[in-house]
């Protein structure tokens, strides 16, 4: 874990600054400056890495001037679409997201500090590709799709497939993430995001658990459950085996415990491993209990 010898000064290295006015512009620059260029939106991750001398891109491309990338739209039947330049605070404060996808608002509100949330964008948060990004478990369980745009094509990728390794995503060099799409919430479903921080209340997330469950309160049957985790594996993950255990079954305490146990087994934390695994179990259990209560309380 070698720190570059002058990283302690926290000064920014030199770089050329470009401002993109269109998506085509940024993609063509990314293509031209293969690997030597980085996109800057909120800058809260990039500039920190650069000050610590972990990264020294030759070109920085500011994409905030590109129009029509900062929006939150919802349409019944179509679902939610969020522009990649939408700030985390906008998502946290959005009435429609708080109403229909509350866990995502909660997760985005947890990230960093108010100042960082006003600067950081959802696109940057996803593009960061780190294992601990709070927003990702919610997007995983909501089965979000990402629109990735390059000069030659546009593709839609399920967020499931986006994370390859810590800080490595499926985004190609000359590609830009432009939009996040989330299908409408299923009826009789509820979601929640639970987390524990490393130390203080506002510290980074140690374990993050998002759960989206669809269930029938009359029969007590779980129709569908999705469990998303962050900070407990090289990338954010879904605990698929755990999900399968509960799907189609009656929701009861002992089964929830088993599901939580399986979710914990799906983790592979690098540090504080025992505690993270244990806490995954605790939080998955708490999250499932909470969404089950929410579903039971909803008047259909």
């Amino acid at each position: 874990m070698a720190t570059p010898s002058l990283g302690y000064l926290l000064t920014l290295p030199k770089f050329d600054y470009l401002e993109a006015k269109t998506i085509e512009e940024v993609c063509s620059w990314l293509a031209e400056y293969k690997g030597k260029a980085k996109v800057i939106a909120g800058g809260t991750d990039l500039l920190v890495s650069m000050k610590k001398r972990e990264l020294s891109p030759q070109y920085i491309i500011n994409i905030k001037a590109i129009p029509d990338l900062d929006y939150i739209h919802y349409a019944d039947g179509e679902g939610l679409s969020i522009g990649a330049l939408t700030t985390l605070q906008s998502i946290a404060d959005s009435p429609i997201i708080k109403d229909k996808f509350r866990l995502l608002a909660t997760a985005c509100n947890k990230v960093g500090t108010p100042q960082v949330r006003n600067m950081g964008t959802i696109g940057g948060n996803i593009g960061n590709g780190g294992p601990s990004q709070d927003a990702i478990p919610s997007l995983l369980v909501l089965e979000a799709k990402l629109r990735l745009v390059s000069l030659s094509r546009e593709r839609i990728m399920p967020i499931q497939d986006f994370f390859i390794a810590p800080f490595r995503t499926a985004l190609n060099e000359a590609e830009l993430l432009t939009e996040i799409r989330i299908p409408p919430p299923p009826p009789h479903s509820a979601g929640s995001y639970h987390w524990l921080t490393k130390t203080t209340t506002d510290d980074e997330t140690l374990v993050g658990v998002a759960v989206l469950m669809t269930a029938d309160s009359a029969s007590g049957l779980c129709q569908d459950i999705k469990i998303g985790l962050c900070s407990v594996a090289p990338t954010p993950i879904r605990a698929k085996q755990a999900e399968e255990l509960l799907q189609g079954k009656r929701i009861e305490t002992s089964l929830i415990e088993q599901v939580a146990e399986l979710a914990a087994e799906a983790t592979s934390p690098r540090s504080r491993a025992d505690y993270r695994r244990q806490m995954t179990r605790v939080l998955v259990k708490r999250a499932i209990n909470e969404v089950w209560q929410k579903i039971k309380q909803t008047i259909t």
Partner: protein
Amino acid sequence: MKEYSVVGKPLTRVDGRVKVTGQAQYAGDITLPNMLYGKILRSPHPHAKIVNIDTSQAEALPGVKAVVTGRDTGGIRFGFVDTPRYPADEYPLAIDKVRYIGEEVAAVAAIDEITAAEALSLIEVDYEPMPAVFDPEEALKDGAPKVHEEIVPTTTCAWQDWGVARDARPYKVVNNICATVSISYGDSEQGFKESDYVREDRFIIPATSHTAMEPHVALANFDSSDKLNVWLSHMSYEVKRYWLAKTLGIPISKVRVHKAFIGGAFGGKINLFPYEFLAAFLSRKTGQPVRIVLSREEVFTSCRLSHRMIINVKTGVKSGGTIMAQEVNLINDPGAYRGSSPVVMFLAHSFCNPIYNIPNLKHKGIGVYTNKAICMPKRGHGSPQARFAIESQLDMIAEDLGIDPAEIRLKNVRKTGDVLPNGDRLDSCGLGMGIWRVVEATKWKQKRGKGNNQGIGMGLAAMFSGAAYYPFGSGAIVKLNADGTATLFTGQAEFGQGSDTAMSQIAAEVLGLTLADIVLVSADSELCPIDIGGFVSAGIFVSGEAVRRAAADARQQLLDNAAEALGAKIDDLDIANGRIYVKSNPEKTVSFSQIVRDSIQKHNGDSIIGKGFCKPVPEIEFYPSLSKGTGRFTDAYGFAIAVAEVEVDPETARVKVIRITIADDSGFSINPVNVQGQLESQAVMGMGDVLFEEIVTDEGRIINPSFADYKIPGVCDIAEFRHIPVDSIEPKGPFGGKEVGECSRAAVIAAIANAICNAIGARIYSLPITPEKILEALKNKGK
């Protein structure tokens, strides 16, 4: 209780407006014409020989005005401790080897920060890494890497300069030992024999950071008269002046520390640091002002940490809970240089001395060099570590004997009038009363043993009110102005603790003026008299008393003149609202301005100037023996009793601190709202110590040198806070005041630790108390 007009009142601080408007100039805000920017190259190795340093490319970079290495500063050493027995061992720049990651190796001054940073990257240092040692118990073993060879003084030592008639002598480093302490009185062996129950436990306390919000900074400028002008973030200008003068080889009268606002200190800004010396050295070399501002990472790695300790406590008690004997053995790991090791080991005893009446005691400490960052005082300096150990063990003893922890403390606490083994007398001691008050206020008895994952715990601490350390005293000057205001000159440095306000309140009270009538000139060494500083808990007790005496002197002169003007006897006069009046005939008055005018015109131009001075312990000249603990130490102790209430989540083992209650005996509060501010500050800081804070190292590298990875409490972490002042008047303090700024942190730490252990029914022997440690302790419970 006497009713005062200004002291004892919760008046708003005098520096509030400049701070809330952003106008307050901290040292890093000040720009001088032609100013250069300095940056420091630091060692990436924990232990390495410096084979060669090539600065030629850096010097050739356009915009670079000077580059310096150890050969330019060769031979000079400084340190917080520089005594005949312990010669200073720190260098402004490493000479032949580096001893910890972050140690200063070279420095540059350039036209801007970007150029200075670039110049650093052009300096080529040839290191030859050597085996390093990181664990103090390993460092003590034969064959361990030697952090230091023999330390040979190259000049007189500081204490010689300050008047101790003993030559500095070489210090032979054996087994990496940098200092030892051995204090004893009574017969602890016999005491244990007479005990019904004896416990022995071991505790580990890690290093923490002060994290004052203002990073360390120095601006230095040699002016046209060869005077060194500096603007620093500091706690005592006399200490800085002395060391700057000595290391630069200039007379102390040629060093002026200017007033600058200071953004917090907590003990982390006391002694001379390399960056301060370097700013001055580079200014002299370039002939231009040089400003060095450290990055937060540099502050974490090189601006000292609180002391790491391994503390072994053995205590013997009677079955009723009376303490018969105690033996403390501690290993202090101050890092690669001595730092304040002998002092912290001495204070770990001295701050405990006034709390419990322990008839037989042995206190032994060894300071051990390791290849890690250096440790220095932090708010309580030895007390937080010692109280955590001793208070934790006392709770365990209480539980083993079936005695309530508050009861066992009441049984052993000292009282007003007690004389300590070293001769200090407790003229004010609110310990017993304080325990009663918190037990009542917190409903201790009902909550103790409540279960339900909740816990309540208590911790006691004591703190001195100044001791003999350079410059050994404080002076103050009060100058009456013709318009009825008064100008107060005091050297006290305001770094948030409220000294500017408190000193002004004292002067105003004595002179019968309001706070707004006091014009304050503080912390400028050219304009103000000597001052003992703000790091020995002497602000109120010593400097405040000096101010009181200066104001009293001026007051006396006023009354003398007024007696003549009004044709009255002095004892028939009193002062209020800027006027002197005859008590028996209040219609007869004269204003200050009239008196001052009269005095000038009728009495040879005497404009009425008052002076006053004070020292921490009138009877003694120098410091008590650090290593033996004998001799008078301080003239008054402050006390704190903290009670913490916590809730522990049984599944996640997360601790929520619900409430912290502090009963403090800080004598009379000159400014009650500032006193409360100090206590609340320590309540939150103590919480950080117990739950969150730890400097983590890996092979000597600090791996959490940022606010992202070293977390201090944020607003969402705070507990309910309650303050219970214990009525107390310290007869020797100004208006009865004494120390408050650094006593409670230790009491809070002990209280929260005890509360957590009460909640979970198991003991944790090291800080911080993490969820993992709690789960581990629960697992081992009953084994």
